[in-house]
């Protein structure tokens, strides 16, 4: 799907809600705290990120010619136009760049987690590489397991990995100083 279609789909009411009630890409009907949370739907460029996450590794795409990191992943290096790339392992350390506390109306699985947070983390080795995620109290803890008062821009965090009921592993973030 093109970027155009992505933005369009993100903003368009083209599919009636009745058609979107039960669809692939969510963990509908799965047990546990994460039931109904959306799962990542990787594209060809992004698939290696999720494969590495499943092995407990946080890796970012790097140009094999000029060594520049890039995120989100893409086929070609915007700095030197090389098509050769590899996935460089990150320390998993970073800082909170920003955060929000979404409130209803929300998709039901997220509405069931009042006070949950969504954060953006800038990576310690590459502050301009920023990942959206969630601050949690433990790798498998729910998205609202850290009180909103603990969220602070600049707070040091470290990556952990959580295996969701659908079998997909996603990075989560813990405070370095809980």
């Amino acid at each position: 799907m093109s970027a155009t279609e992505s933005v369009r789909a993100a903003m368009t009411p083209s599919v009636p809600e009745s058609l979107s009630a039960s669809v692939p890409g969510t963990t509908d009907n799965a047990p546990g705290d994460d039931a109904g949370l959306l799962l990542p739907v990787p594209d060809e460029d992004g698939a290696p990120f999720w494969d590495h996450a499943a092995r407990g590794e946080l890796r970012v795409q790097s140009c094999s010619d000029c060594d520049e990191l890039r995120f989100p992943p893409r086929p070609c290096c915007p700095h030197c136009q090389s098509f050769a790339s590899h996935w460089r392992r990150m320390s998993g350390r970073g800082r909170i760049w920003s955060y929000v506390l979404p409130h209803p109306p929300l998709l039901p699985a997220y509405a069931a987690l009042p006070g949950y947070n969504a954060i953006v983390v800038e990576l310690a080795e590459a502050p301009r590489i920023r990942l959206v995620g969630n601050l949690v109290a433990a790798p498998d803890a729910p998205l609202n397991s850290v009180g909103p008062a603990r969220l602070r821009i600049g707070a040091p965090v470290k990556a952990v990995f959580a295996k969701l009921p659908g079998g997909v592993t996603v990075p989560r973030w813990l405070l370095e100083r809980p």
Partner: protein
Amino acid sequence: MGATLKDATAIAGIGQTPFAKHLPESEKTLACRAIVAALDDAGIAPSEVDAFASYTMEETDEVEIAKAIGAGDVTHFSKVGYGGGGSCATVAHLAAAVATGQASVGVAWRSRKRGSGPRPWKNTRVQLPTPGQWTRPFGLLRPADEIGLLARRYMHEYGATRDHLFNVALACRNRANQNPAAIMYERPLTREMYMTARWISEPLCLFDNCLETDGALACVVVSAERARDCRQRPVYVHSAAQGLPAQHHGMVNYWNDDPLTGPAWTAARHLWKGADLGPQDVDVAQIYDAFTPLIPLSLEGYGFCGRGEGAAFTEGGALEIGGRLPLNTGGGGLSEAYVHGFNLITEGVKQLRGTSTAQVPDAATCLVTAGEGVPTSALLLRS
């Protein structure tokens, strides 16, 4: 340099339906009503229309519109992407087509039942590998969440407060209270209402978010020469621009070097380059306001103040009538109607005709902008 767009074309007609949470008619019918009204406003027969422009998100295509309204042979049609970022570009594309002889009478429109229809972000069927795979699993679901993240960072970096965002919401609401067509015509807003409102995506509350509206609007673009023979006073397209910055990522623009300078900066550079005027010459502004933080960001981007000064700019009634830059004088997306910013274009035209319900005395130049955050567009209109 070849042909220039500067003042070569004009908006000769505008039309709109009522705005409501729910209108019984279809988007197609509403689109036709707005377009027929705009052509009548201009005094141009539908059979003369030979160009159309709208948004990629518009559900009714130009084939349906053309055959319903009785357009003639159409020789230019275009659709612009990125939701509300495309609003001004629809007029810009028509202006370019008319100025270069591809067409002579262009119609731009937007019809949307966002009030009674589904919320786009609830659609989990279209699960967007890029960039949705990097955001939606983490509960960053809605545009309000995506802009809320930017707003939090903006407030952190520059000391902006909720009072600054309230200044934006209040200016729009005050203008809507003067506009009988506005959804919020009879609903004043107070600081207490704002400060105690429920959160939507903290730091954004209910009043930081635009309305959910059914409605349609249209405008007619012709050559400047033709416009002078039409029914209404011409409103010239003085300059126009689109903006997709280098390394931009769409609404979730957290991955470039400087996420707080968005598409507005890119569009503005081109807009002012093509103009005889600068930000200091703008009498009134219609700035895309799906969310209040887009106003300080856009004020900076379009050069009304320096970087980080957009929030402070809103102080002291600057956005009210009589202030430094009267804003969204029909009420905007926050308080008149949210129809992907098209009502900002028509309100700009009303100001320059002298027929706004919140008229800025002697307004001669108006900036109109499209959605900030997404790839955007802008128009500089003059009377």
